[in-house]
């Protein structure tokens, strides 16, 4: 049974094509592209050698889910993230979704069913937006931020939890000629503090799994580990967890 899950996020749109619980193909398209969802789905189908009519079960999630014309159903990011995380790492019980403009902390059981959650989609702190603003202020490309931060030798504290104020703090640190890797470490600690706060709210149960685009940043993961005092696992292709969950839900709904 084939199914497609599509995660229409604020920055990127992700699609996966699955057969039962096996991923056949993936595609990622910038959400600002015209008809991003269509493009992502078409790419997935093409990679697997299939055509549009071959797959009938399509569930959409993410902030743009209601605009995905081909969707046969919708689901929230919360339940999709949990399903997708447990699929990738069966021991996942606490899921941290680190997205571009929002972050979620989810507790789930062994079948990926949600038992508790906390959502932040109103404050840019702790999201990719924060990272992006800092990347511009420091003139360090986003993919390099995490690794460079690990080279820090001195503790630098960014005391502001707000993106706007933190930006000014970073600018004044730059003026004072503080080393980039040290400032970066402070920035990553700040984001991790925000996320740790959410983790604190729902409580953490092993295994803690991080998904979403920002989970690829090893600097953030390192700081969450340190602040929470717990291991944080990152599956392969963390940004597709939501789409995988959506595809699994699509298959479920089609059977019943």
């Amino acid at each position, binding site marked *: 049974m084939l199914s497609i899950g599509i995660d229409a996020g604020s920055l990127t749109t992700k699609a996966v094509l699955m057969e039962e619980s096996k991923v056949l193909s993936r595609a990622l398209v910038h959400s600002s592209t015209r008809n991003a969802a269509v493009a992502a789905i078409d790419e997935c189908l093409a990679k697997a050698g299939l055509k549009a009519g071959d797959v009938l079960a399509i569930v959409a999630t993410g902030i743009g889910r209601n605009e995905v014309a081909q969707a046969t159903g919708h689901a929230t990011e919360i339940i999709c993230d949990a399903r997708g995380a447990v699929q990738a790492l069966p021991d996942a019980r606490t899921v941290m979704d680190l997205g571009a403009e929002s972050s979620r902390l989810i507790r789930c059981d062994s079948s990926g069913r949600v038992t508790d959650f906390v959502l*932040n989609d*109103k*404050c*840019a*702190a702790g999201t990719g937006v924060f990272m992006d603003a800092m990347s511009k202020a420091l003139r360090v490309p986003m993919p390099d931020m995490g690794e460079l931060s690990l080279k820090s030798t001195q503790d630098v504290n960014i*005391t*502001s*939890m*707000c993106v706007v104020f933190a930006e000014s703090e970073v600018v004044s640190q730059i003026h004072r000629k503080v080393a980039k890797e040290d400032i970066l470490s402070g920035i990553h600690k700040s984001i991790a*503090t*925000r996320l*740790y*706060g*959410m983790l*604190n*709210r729902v409580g953490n149960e092993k295994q803690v799994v991080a998904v979403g685009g920002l989970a690829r940043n090893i600097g953030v993961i390192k700081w969450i580990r340190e602040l929470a005092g717990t291991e944080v696992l990152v599956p392969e292709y963390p940004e597709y967890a939501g789409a995988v969950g959506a595809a699994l839900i699509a298959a479920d709904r089609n059977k019943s």
Partner: protein
Amino acid sequence: MKANYGYQDGSGEYYIAIDTDLCNGCGKCAATCPKGIFQVTPDDYDKDVARVRESLTRSIGMLCPGYERCRSRGPNCHSVCPTNAIEHSW
């Protein structure tokens, strides 16, 4: 005086209020809070009272899980305060 420490941002309102007229400066809250949020210092009128540490007022929503959640996990600032001087907005 009622001192409200904390902030409001897009995700909510997080304020811990301490009534300094009721507070007797015993410091039990500071000793009990698992996150070390409180400290006892002289206020502007030279009375020793509890307050949220100045360095933590901007991250209080991230450190303190809120009244209900903390209460369910064990002794907290409210349960040990002899004069009921502390209030949480979440």
